[in-house]
């Protein structure tokens, strides 16, 4: 993995930037203590073109984040497993926004991704949307390591912060009855407060919009919906794997 990361970086880093990174990682590997690691991990953001986008392993990174992944992998290579977990956890505790985003995307490439489960769960409780989405979107971490409780909270939080569910990997596979109850209660609360449902609430039902409570919601909310929202309901009803009432079929022309 480490060679693969460096190969991608090599193509975009300028010669001085590459030399800087190699120098830093040599210090991290050879010096005692963690000062070199902490400083290098932060200082990456001060290198030229830190924001330049780079494609890596099928997703979009930038020069800064990928250099940070390289630093973590180099640190891992030269230190004992326990020390790696302890130190990276410490870095997660005090990361700034971009560092936290990078860590969330990086855990999957470390040797013990599950050791950082609590950190990733914490990132899913944030109200800072880019941090939340670094876990939720295009990241295999939740589907691999979250239990059902963690998974369901992730989905609810996505709707809460008005993020989209579509880039969540394996959303449909991990749909479960308990999640549906949570989604239904969430919708009932919103409707009681006369607030709209999040855009992806109907998509969230997968093929289970035949649930009696979901049908009830579709019926009660109809008058408040815009045409495009009605189309979302219609999509969900069409996908339903169980029978839909005649009334709903007429209402949404299913």
């Amino acid at each position, binding site marked *: 993995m480490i060679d693969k990361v460096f190969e991608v970086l090599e193509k975009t880093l300028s010669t001085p930037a590459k030399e800087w990174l190699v120098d830093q990682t040599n210090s991290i590997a050879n010096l005692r203590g963690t000062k070199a690691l902490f400083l290098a991990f932060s200082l990456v953001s001060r290198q030229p073109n830190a924001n330049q986008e780079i494609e890596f392993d099928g997703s979009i990174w930038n020069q800064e984040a990928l250099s940070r992944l390289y630093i973590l992998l180099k640190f891992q290579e030269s230190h004992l497993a326990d020390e790696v977990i302890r130190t990276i956890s410490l870095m997660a505790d005090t*990361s700034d926004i*971009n560092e936290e985003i990078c860590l969330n995307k990086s855990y999957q490439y470390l040797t013990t991704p599950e050791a950082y489960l609590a950190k990733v769960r914490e990132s899913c409780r944030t109200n800072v949307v880019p941090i939340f989405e670094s876990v939720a979107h295009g990241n295999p971490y939740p589907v691999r390591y979250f239990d059902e409780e963690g998974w369901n909270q992730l989905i609810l939080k996505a709707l809460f912060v*008005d993020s989209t569910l579509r880039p969540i990997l394996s959303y449909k596979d991990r749909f479960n009855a308990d999640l549906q109850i949570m989604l239904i209660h969430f919708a009932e609360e919103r409707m009681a407060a006369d607030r709209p449902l999040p855009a992806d609430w109907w998509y969230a039902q997968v093929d289970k919009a035949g649930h009696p409570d979901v049908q009830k919601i579709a019926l009660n909310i109809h008058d408040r919906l815009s045409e495009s929202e009605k189309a979302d309901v219609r999509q969900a009803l069409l996908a339903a794997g169980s029978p839909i009432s005649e009334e709903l079929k007429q209402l949404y022309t299913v």
Partner: protein
Amino acid sequence: MYIDPHIHCVSRTTDDYINMARAGICAVIEPAFWLGQPRTTSGSFVDYFSMIVGWERFRASMYGISHYCTIGLNSKEANNEKLGEEVMEILPRFICKEKVVAIGEIGYDEQTKLEDRFYREQLELAKELDMVVLVHTPHRDKKRGTYKSMDVAIEHGLPPDKVIIDHNNEETCKEVLDRGFWAGFTIYPRTKMDSRRMVEIVKQYGPERIIVDSSADWGYSDPLAVPRTAELMRKHGISEEVIKMVTYQNALDAYGQSGQFKESDWLNAEKPNQKNSFFKGNGILRGSQLEHLLPSAEDDTIYH
């Protein structure tokens, strides 16, 4: 447009942020300081530093204000030796993060041996990493404390133009400027320095290397001190060019040396809105409409 280069936002309310944005403050620097009472564990410092590089920055951005900070062990808490040593160990985890514009605020409170030790150690760190330094000068025995702060900075090889000496008054100002340091002036409604005295200082010394700030915190202080002082300068016929230097440009030039404090950050910032991913969510707005929070055309001054 104003910069308040010294304000302790964690102690301020959301109303303050709204008023600051309306008054034209586009960027703030939050120096790490004490909390009004001493911390008892280094863990409290970790969380505090994390907060000012993380959540507080996000909170400010919700009001359209670009937030920066300085990181350091303050002089008051430097008197707890064990804690001071632990904080020195923690600093490398924070000082080079994005938008950390200086080491600070460091310096003297009672000018004790321990304050001196940790001030010097942090100056060494600043020198090693080529960082800007923000120096807090003592309120008691001010004149000697201020001169000593400068002597020690020079002794450790810091160039004066990378050091901001803050909380000046009529007595300290001349020496600080003569020696080539930046001179910060904290405008407090009653004590340190008020807007009226500030006008006189600018008339006497001109705008070179003078920086006005509020140091607003948990005490009786004014988060609008910078725009208010600018307004008073206008009333006294001080030119716009001079006003801009002491309430905006000098701070930008001094802290801009860090490479972390860029005008483009706030000039090009997207206005906070529900669609802008950084600002959306239920973070702090709790369903309120952002338009009500943001400066409107009528709010061109804070004196309406």
